[in-house]
């Protein structure tokens, strides 16, 4: 069962309240998404831990209900001059 992008964003924000979430539907089928998640809570965490925090927020849906979630995580930079 495909998942709506808004639902993915809602679940991530419920677990990581300060998260800035950007989601792209890669295939237009509601089943292959790319997400970028920025949160200050990621500071000091390894990439693996950051991704695990997002997977945990999605409560076991990744790899199951949600076939593929291409994931990019980051700590927001103070000077957003990009």
């Amino acid at each position, binding site marked *: 069962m495909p998942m709506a992008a808004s639902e993915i964003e809602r679940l991530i924000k419920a677990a990581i309240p300060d998260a800035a979430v950007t989601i792209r539907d890669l295939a237009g089928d509601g089943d292959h998404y790319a997400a970028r998640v920025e949160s200050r809570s990621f500071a000091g965490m390894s990439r693996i831990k950051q*991704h695990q925090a997002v997977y945990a927020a999605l409560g076991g849906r990744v790899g199951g209900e949600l076939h593929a979630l291409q994931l990019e995580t980051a700590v927001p930079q103070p000077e957003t001059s990009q």
Partner: protein
Amino acid sequence: MTSANDRIAELVNNNDVVLFMKGTALFPQCGFSSRAVAILDRLEAKYETVDVLQDPEIRQGIKEYSEWPTVPQLYVRGEFVGGSDIMMEMFESGELQELLAAAA
């Protein structure tokens, strides 16, 4: 009888670089696994692959072993490195090359 956990521990500890993937390096069965193989080949890495599609016990077991819900998964010297997204980020930043050079 060996548990999936023991078999995985043996695989990651007895091989410097191991990729758990869907399919084989020559015939990857999933875009993400294909991407992981392409990155390792690009870096001319020497690596072993484990096809989880041929082994349901490993397929389920590796998710628990790494606390990671998806395949592919890369291990270098017994340490979990990440999936294809992390591999790509580390490839682009040059970190993966360093890690693999140290493993060679």
